[in-house]
């Protein structure tokens, strides 16, 4: 990574393309958080690649003054894997929505996370298909009435954080589009993490699924409904810090009144635990954004990075056998000469 020696600003990360999301879309806030953050990270825009699939969220690369590929539906993690594998020196971010990443591209997402490719994967979750004008998505709640489910959806939704933890992804976090500071902090940590980072971003689609997260994000309920995870601290929330999280004898989490159980019974959040079980338990607190929901970093554990290991094998092979000799390769084995 080169140090440009110049202090960059948000403007340096904005392309000349007009942003074409619907007025009031949550994507604007997420784009702004990314563009505010990147100058702080000291990253050279010419060394960044944004890769996306298809969907509203997937248009984001066009608005970044970096290298970018707007690929095909669901395949962004695969395309990004190719970029990272060919060029481990680059910063590769992947942008997509819940349909792109969990439905048509679910396979690529889990495998990118499993392999631990150094990708920063931001999944904008609005629980709806926006670009195709309002069908239910793999994160829509049961019973949801949409154009394709006039009698209510009967599909059980994914919990994206649980899914990512199930792949043993090294970095798993959740944030939301109404708190730029929180987004910037979570994205910063994802950037600093070496390896695959998965961030679920709750994002409001004000046209097809307005208020999907109002139950936890509206200003007057937020204090009692958002659990802001902080490493090394007992999990406490509520307007008066009166609520906490405990585990029962089976390791299952629940929300409690601190006054009832006492501070010492509260779960202390440890994002660096190598075993993902506790992080997974925390992700089970909320199946839907209508009960107290944890946000922040669920897990931050380092393990070998795919493309680093690829390079290591290449270097070891060259060390062992010397650089490739084409003529020698072609004449491997028995040869004979006709004169």
């Amino acid at each position: 990574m080169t140090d440009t020696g110049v202090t960059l600003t948000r403007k340096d990360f904005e392309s000349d393309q007009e942003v074409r999301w619907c007025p009031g879309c949550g994507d604007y806030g997420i784009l702004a958080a990314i563009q505010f953050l990147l100058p702080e990270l000291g990253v050279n825009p010419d060394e960044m690649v944004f890769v996306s699939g298809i969907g509203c969220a997937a248009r984001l690369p066009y608005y970044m003054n970096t290298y970018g590929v707007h690929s095909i539906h669901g395949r962004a993690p695969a395309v990004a894997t190719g970029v990272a594998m060919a060029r481990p020196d680059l910063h590769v971010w992947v942008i997509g929505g819940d349909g792109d990443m969990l439905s048509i591209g679910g396979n690529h997402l889990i495998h990118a996370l499993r392999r631990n490719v150094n990708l920063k994967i931001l999944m904008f979750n609005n629980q709806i298909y926006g670009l195709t004008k309002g069908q239910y998505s793999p994160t829509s709640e049961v019973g949801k009435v949409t154009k394709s489910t006039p009698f209510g959806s009967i599909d059980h939704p994914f919990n994206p954080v649980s899914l990512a933890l199930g792949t043993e992804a090294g970095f798993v976090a959740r944030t939301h589009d109404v708190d730029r500071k929180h987004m910037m902090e979570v994205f910063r940590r994802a950037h600093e993490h070496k390896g695959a980072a998965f961030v679920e971003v709750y994002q409001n689609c004000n046209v097809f699924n307005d208020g999907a997260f109002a139950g936890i994000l509206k200003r007057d309920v937020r204090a009692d409904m958002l659990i802001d995870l902080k490493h090394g601290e007992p999990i406490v929330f509520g307007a008066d810090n009166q609520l906490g999280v405990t585990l029962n004898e089976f390791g299952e989490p629940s929300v409690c009144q601190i006054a009832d159980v006492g501070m010492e019974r509260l779960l202390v959040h440890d994002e660096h635990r190598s075993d993902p079980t506790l992080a997974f338990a925390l992700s089970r607190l909320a199946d839907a954004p209508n009960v107290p929901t944890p946000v922040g970093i669920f897990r931050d554990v380092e393990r070998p990075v795919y493309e680093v290991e690829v390079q290591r094998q290449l270097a070891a092979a060259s060390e062992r056998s010397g650089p490739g000799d084409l003529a020698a390769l072609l004449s491997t084995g028995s040869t004979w000469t006709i004169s």
Partner: protein
Amino acid sequence: MTLDTTSAHEAQTLDQVVIRFAGDSGDGMQLVGDRFTEISAAFGNDLATLPNFPAEIRAPAGTIAGVSSFQVHISDHDIVTPGDVPNVLVAMNPAALKANMSDVSPGTTLLINSDAFDQRNLEKAGYAANPLDDGSLAAFNVYPVPMTSITVEATRELGVKPRDAERSKNFFALGLLCWMYTRPTKPMIEWIEKRFADKQTVLDANLAAFRAGRNFGETAELFDNPYEVAPAKLREGKYRNIIGNLALSYGLIAASQKAKLPLVYSSYPITPASDILHELSKHKNFGVKTLQAEDEIAACGIAIGAAFAGALGVTGTSGPGVDLKSEAMGLAISLELPLLIVDVQRGGPSTGLPTKTEQADLLLAMYGRHGESPLPIVAAKSPSHCFDAAFEAVRIAVKYRTPVILLSDGYLANGAEPWLLPDVDSMADISVEFATEKNHGDEFWPYLRDPETLARPWAIPGTPGLAHRIGGIEKEDGTGNISYQPENHEHMVHIRAAKIAGIANDIPLTDLDDDGGDEVLVLGWGSTWGAITAGVRRVRLRGRKVSHAHLMHLNPFPRDLGDVLSRYRTVLVPEMNLGQLARLVRAEYLVDAKTFTRMAGVPFRAAEMEAKILEMYA
């Protein structure tokens, strides 16, 4: 050539022989076929091989479904096919005999493992009576040899359990064939010693079985004399034996070196393409990165990402995988990035015949994507030619910033032939320059084209000042910005087509073997080259004039192809499909091409090719 010879103790000279080893899938027929081939190659014979095995790893032992065979044609002169039918059939059990009887003609030598012809095996193969006893093989030269029991006997003193010893009987058969055709013994023994170095008992047993086979030939007095097939007088140079998948892998490495681009090969396991992944994964000291992807689509997406980042992105598969990759291939067409898709064709549709050959993916390669989505197609014609075809496909992909489909097939993939090694230093430099400067005033326009090739600049991430975004949405020519303008889309559709069509000016004229006649032209592509060449030779020996054109480039066609086709009264197109190339040339040149089709999972035979060509003079 015949094996019916008068008695003599000296080795008798043959100009060629076709040997087929046949046995159960677990009998090691592919292994001994390979070994016989390698020895013959190193001895200097020209040769061609046809492995033929079931898709099941171990079909029920002793059944017809489980028969695996390996045919090798060796000669003292230039040959182009693995031979129509064997002169010698080695049958390790009744099923192997029965499965191959339709391919043997009276007078053929049948070397039979008589130990395997017990009641149980005869029943499994569906024989009511033992063909060794009932006179049904009277027209053949039958040599029943108790291969299993001699092998067990030969290994008894080594302390090998009889059950394990039986497994070495393929080496007995190999030893016997090596004696019959006076193959050098030393390299075979050295190979066994090296191959089984870490399994002493197996090594000892195989060696003992191989020697027992040779000794049996010398002492049993069953055979009048051994035979000799002298080395072939091929073109001067250094040779090795090679199969298509290996040649193709080497071609990719060579192209990567000559393009000065690191190779990223991502692939999902699929027969018969997997060996390319296996081979390339060994050569990391050439900077080759391989990835076994989660699926076919990812494999293509990864190669595209690698290409965007400045590597040589290649994905390899067979037909079912091409189906899955088609959307990603369309993306590469829209992104105008170099990409190579290798399709080692097999019998279809659907799972079809995974281990058998076919050439029925030509129209898939040509048209198998939505929208107007042209791409160049290159096809290999013989196992060693897979090297040249891979190199040429990469050259086009890189120069024109386009995905290219390289067509091989199951026969080429596993078939072997001697390969005149190319001079590495004189191979073309196919490198291209990445964009490093802004190209439109103070801006970088990712779709500002080279006026000659119509290729767009390839600016890779990390290049200062050239940051740009590309995608699958239609874009404005030049700027690359999203554009839904009607005139622009019309323009882009035409310019993408023109770019591919223009490659015709950058490829050789039709590869034409013309003997001056104007009656019949045989037009082929891909692996039918061997059978067509052999058929054409036979027709010429009968005093007929016949020409043969063989296409390596299927899109675009060589620029003189229309003229060539118009010079002949009859154009015959033999294909292992229902007439796909014939359909293309009919559409393109209004030529009344005749089709000759065969989809049996095995290559055309020279004899049927000869007969079909002769029909054209009627």
